[in-house]
Structures are given as structure tokens and as C-alpha cells.
């Protein structure tokens, strides 16, 4: 009865349900999914941890560093774009959470303060971790990277021990916050079929059944309007007694056009991410050394924690302030408050964030990619000396970076346009849109400029 209401036979490229494809449907409903990917990921994670904590002390020779910072970290925003938060379904930390919970979990409700301030905590953690990486050299130091992983492991063990479902992933994990924002640009969407869900009273998708647990991230597909907290673990697909769940392909950034309840903390995070991408780029530029010298002279100290903190604060403040200024200018036209505009249009920057992030990481992936192979064969006693770690030429990388920034620019510009049109009509929409268009052009130019300058490598 229920399946008749589903938009069957619609092409999957035209928004049709991917679960129409038998192979995908079988995979999603299989009891082995997502475990079949989760467990190998956990094993790989254990190898990485072993390397980071007990392997070579030099990042250059450490397979854990290569797999973490040259392979995983660059690939992850690409995954968010194509598969939404699917990474979170197979993330080894989440697996540890589930394991601990299974054996000793007390399943207590999520603390109220986490529900209320979770995203702000994530914002703060994301800023702190990026800052500490620069000041304490986490990426350059395999053991430091290992300790970061241990901290996250301890976090998920604490969460899994005492709190229900994946409290840590939803309310604390800094990567979860980032992925939540990025997944909004993602091309996969999971939703309940409204007509079917309207008649449903079981809420099996949320509560869980004997087939699978309830949604690990506390989502209720019946009322879901965003993929920010859907990890596509397929538990709801298995649990739904009415086959209501649909998995569809959508246009990148589409979710950003219709945010029903925009939140300032999420808009703020999108501006912060832009600043973090700036600072990551700036500190990897060959001119960073001279900039640092200048700053040391200007502030009268050679303390790197001080000079970097100043740079970091400036880099983060710039996009936040620019977004604030733009929102204030737009408010002159649309009579909305600065906060309202900031909150609504902050989401428009996410497309450029994702593009800038992928473009930055593309350098590590493509210019240092072979180091994964070199460090792996070094484990077998085969040393490679003097060989280039680059997979492709710098020209190719730069071409791809500019292409990505161009796509991000289009995505952000169009999102701002759609948000303006959804909230205002006629010329007012255009007047509201124009300042944001200027902002997006400015941010794009800043990104492009940073990619023009030569970068230093991570390995």
C-alpha cells in the first residue's frame, strides 16, 4: 500500500529514489551495512594510531601522518559533497562509541546544555583545534596527531559509556559540526515520504526496532528538512515499516536555498570556516616567514603563540566582520536586522567554504600523494630517496583549484540569490542580493589570490 505513494520510476538523476535501484536497496537493507565498511575503517584506524603513537617520529616517514593528513583529511570534504555525512556512519570514533555503548552504555539522555550550546561548543572546539595545531604543531608531529586522536577516542568512550546514541558525534565532534555544514551542499538527501509518514504513528525510524537501532543522531525522518545530521547509516531504511524513506540525488547546494530555521551559530561557523581556510593557506605560503617577522617586530615579541593567535584572530574576524557589514548594508534595503540577515545569508558562504577547503587540501593530496605509498613501503623496509611525492604537476593542481573556487563562487552566488528571492520579492530581492554578491566576489578574490602564491608542503 505504502510503496504505491512513492515516486517510483522517476529517474534517479531527476530526483528519483535511489532505493529503486535493487542493488542499492539491498545494500542499504543488508544487516552488514554499514558494518562492512565500518570494520575495515576501524582496523585501518588502529594501524594509523599505532603508527602515530609508536611509529617514526618524523612526519615525513610516518604512514599514520600520510594516511591522516595527506589522504583522509583532503578527501573528507569531497566525501561530504558527494555522500553527505556518510563518513560519520563509518567513522572509527563512532564505531568505538557504539561498541562501548553496547557493552557498558548507560544510555542517559543528552545533557541539556549540550542540546542548547552544542553548535557553539563545536565552533569553539574547531577554532581551538585549528589554533592548537599551529601553535603546538599537531600535524607536523605524529605523536601530537596521535594524542589528538586519543582525546577524541576518550570523548567517544565517555559519551558511549554514559549517554544515549551518538551524543558526541551530534553535539561535540568538531568534524561533525564541519560535516553538518558541508553536508548541506551534499548531493545525497534522505527524507521520509510526507504522505506516508503523515499516517505513521510508530516512529520506528527514531526509536529503532529489532532490525536496527533508532537514528544515531537523533533525527526523525518524518520531520527532517536537512541532511546536516543524517549520516546515511540506513538504520531508518531498515526500520521503517512503510518503506517511506527515500534516498535521492539533488543538486549541490540545493538544501542551502531553503533553510527553514536558520541558526546564527551555523551561519557563524560558515564564516569561521572561511577564516580558517584563509589562515591555513596563509601559514603555508612561502611568504609566511616574512609576514611573521614583520608581525614580531610590530608586536614586539617572538612568541609564536602570540603572533599566530593575532594572525588567526584577524583571519577569522575578516569574514565574520565582512558578513556582518554586508548584512548591515543589506538591512538598509530589506529592513531586516543585522542578525537576521547574517543568519539567513551566512549559509550562502558554505559553498565557497567547501570549495576553498577542497582546493586547499587538493594541494596536499595531489602534491604529496605519493608519500602515502613511500611511507607504506618503508614499513616493508623499502626506502625511497629523493623521489617527488607529487601525483600531478603544480600547474594541474592550480588549474583544479581555480576550477573549484569558480564552482564554489557560482554555488555561493546562486544560494545568496535564492535566499534573497525566498525572503523578499521583486526589486527588494535584488537589492538584498547585491551586497552579498559583492561579498562573495571579495571572498572569492581573496581565495584565488591565496592560491596564486606558492605553498609549502605538509610531509
Amino acid at each position, binding site marked *: 500500500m505504502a510503496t504505491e505513494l512513492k515516486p517510483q520510476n522517476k529517474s534517479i538523476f531527476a530526483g528519483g529514489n535511489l532505493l529503486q535501484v535493487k542493488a542499492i536497496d539491498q545494500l542499504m537493507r543488508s544487516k552488514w551495512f554499514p558494518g562492512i565498511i565500518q570494520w575495515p575503517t576501524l582496523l585501518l584506524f588502529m594501524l594509523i594510531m599505532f603508527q602515530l*603513537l*609508536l611509529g617514526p*617520529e*618524523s*612526519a*615525513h616517514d610516518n604512514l599514520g601522518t600520510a594516511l591522516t593528513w595527506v589522504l583522509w583529511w583532503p578527501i573528507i570534504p569531497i566525501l561530504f559533497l558527494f555522500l553527505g555525512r556518510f563518513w560519520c556512519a563509518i567513522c572509527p570514533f563512532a564505531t568505538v562509541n*557504539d561498541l*562501548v*555503548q*553496547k*557493552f*557498558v*552504555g*548507560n*544510555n*542517559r*539522555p543528552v545533557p541539556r546544555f549540550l542540546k542548547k550550546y552544542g553548535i557553539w561548543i563545536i565552533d569553539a572546539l574547531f577554532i581551538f583545534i585549528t589554533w*592548537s595545531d599551529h601553535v*603546538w*604543531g599537531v600535524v*607536523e*608531529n*605524529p*605523536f*601530537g596527531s596521535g*594524542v589528538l586522536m*586519543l*582525546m577524541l*577516542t*576518550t570523548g567517544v*568512550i*565517555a559519551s558511549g*559509556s*554514559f549517554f*544515549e*546514541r551518538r551524543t558526541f558525534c551530534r553535539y561535540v565532534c568538531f568534524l561533525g559540526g564541519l560535516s553538518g555544514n558541508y553536508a548541506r551542499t551534499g548531493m545525497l538527501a534522505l527524507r521520509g515520504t510526507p504522505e506516508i509518514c503523515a499516517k505513521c504513528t510508530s516512529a520506528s525510524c527514531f526509536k*529503532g526496532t529489532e532490525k536496527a*537501532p*533508532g537514528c*544515531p543522531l537523533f533525527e526523525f525522518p518524518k520531520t527532517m528538512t536537512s541532511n546536516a545530521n543524517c549520516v546515511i547509516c540506513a538504520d531508518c531504511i531498515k526500520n521503517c515499516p512503510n518503506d517511506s524513506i527515500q534516498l535521492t540525488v539533488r543538486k549541490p547546494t540545493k538544501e542551502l536555498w531553503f533553510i527553514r530555521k536558520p541558526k546564527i551559530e551555523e551561519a557563524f561557523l560558515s564564516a569561521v570556516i572561511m577564516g580558517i581556510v584563509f589562515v591555513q593557506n596563509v601559514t603555508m605560503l612561502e611568504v609566511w616567514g616574512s609576514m*611573521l617577522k614583520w608581525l614580531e617586530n610590530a608586536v614586539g*615579541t*617572538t*612568541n*609564536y603563540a602570540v603572533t599566530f593567535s593575532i594572525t588567526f584572530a584577524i583571519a577569522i574576524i575578516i569574514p565574520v566582520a565582512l558578513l556582518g557589514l554586508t548584512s548591515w548594508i543589506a538591512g538598509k534595503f530589506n529592513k531586516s536586522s543585522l542578525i537576521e540577515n547574517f543568519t539567513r545569508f551566512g549559509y550562502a558562504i558554505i559553498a565557497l567554504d567547501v570549495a576553498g577547503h577542497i582546493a586547499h587540501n587538493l594541494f596536499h593530496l595531489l602534491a604529496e600523494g605519493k608519500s602515502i605509498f613511500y611511507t607504506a613501503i618503508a614499513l616493508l623496509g623499502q626506502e625511497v630517496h629523493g623521489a617527488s611525492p607529487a601525483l600531478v604537476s603544480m600547474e594541474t593542481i592550480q588549474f583544479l583549484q581555480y576550477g573549484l573556487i569558480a564552482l564554489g563562487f557560482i554555488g555561493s552566488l546562486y544560494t545568496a540569490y535564492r535566499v534573497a528571492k525566498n525572503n523578499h520579492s521583486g526589486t527588494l530581492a535584488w537589492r538584498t542580493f547585491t551586497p552579498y554578491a559583492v561579498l562573495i566576489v571579495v571572498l572569492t578574490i581573496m581565495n584565488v589570490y591565496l592560491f596564486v602564491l606558492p605553498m609549502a608542503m605538509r610531509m
Partner: protein
Amino acid sequence: MRGLLHITLTLLLVVVVAFSNSSAVLADGEDGEHALEMEVNGIHVSLANQNEWKKGENTIIVTLKDSSGSPVKNANVEMLIGPMAEEHAEAEDSHGAAEPAAHGAEQGHSSMPGMEMNEPAPESQEMPAHDEEKEPLLLEESGEHGIYVLETHLESAGTHEVNVMFHVNGEMLQANFVVEIPGVLSKTIVLWSFAAINVVLIASAGIMKKQSIPVKGR
């Protein structure tokens, strides 16, 4: 429950703070004010730290006295300080046991840390050594003659080579010291601390689970 969480969070915080500012936790007992000394061409050179040698801000004091014990004035003292290459560190005795450098800049420079670009120092991977200068740092002559002071920031822990260069009667002399900058917690301590915290968390959760009825199962 709340108390237990507080205890485990405090333990975790201690590990985090200890790791991030580990010099405070695992100082090797070296008395920072205790000076390292050597003779170079009849000039008595002593190297001391106002406090303890540590990762971060240090106030380094060099005292120069001639053979008669009189302070050496206006010696234009410069210093190079940086992490030492591993094989050098192993070869050297740990504190102040380096031999006086030969006279003259050329020979003295051959062992300067900043020049050893092809030999990564043991701790150089740990932190970016932004402030460990490859160019000599000029020490300020303090009010008391023969005493020269440098305030500098050391980014990394581990064995460091300190080259003190000074001028006496138009001749440049150099004294090389090796100092151990305490700071890195032993990996074993860090790993066991995390293991202990996690075992406490899991064990407590297990005990609590046995004592109470779970609210909601996953």
C-alpha cells in the same frame, strides 16, 4: 554520576594540560640557575638560565671573566641556540660537557645547529622552531659588567646546542654548550594516562549499568 564525570574530566584535563605544557610536569630536576661553565683561551664562560630551562620564554645569562677573575666588558656576545641533531646529541655528554670550540668563526660554525640542514634534529619535528634563530642573537650587557642577558623563546624541547660567541681583544671566541630542555612527557606516561582514563570510564559505566535500569537502549 556527576562526581565521576568531574573526576574523569579533571583527569583528562590534567593529561591535556600536561601534554600541552609538559615542561611543568616532567622537568628533569635540573637546577636552572646552576651554571654550565668552561674555559676558552683563558676566558671563563658560564651559561645559566634565570629560571629553569624550559620550552617557551627563557632568560639566558652568560657571564665572562678573564683569567684573573675580572669581568670581561663590551665583548659583543652573540648566541646561536637550536635543537641538536640526534647523532650529535647522543655523542655529547648531556650538560655542559661540550668541548670549547676552536678559535675563529669558520671552524666554530661547522657545528652550528642552524647550518645542519640535512640532519633533522630529534625534536625539530615536534614543533615548528619559529624562533630558534639561524642568525646569532645579540645579548644585552647588563648593569653588572661581564654579565650578558638574552630573553628568547624556545619552541621545542630536547637536546639543544648553545653556541656563545664573543669578542676579546679583537679576536672572536666561541664556547659550545649542550643543554637539555625538559618538556616532552614520556610517550609511555601519556599513553598510560589515556588508557587509565578510558578504563576508569568504561569500568564506571559498567558498574553503573549493573546498578541501574537503562533509560533507552541503542
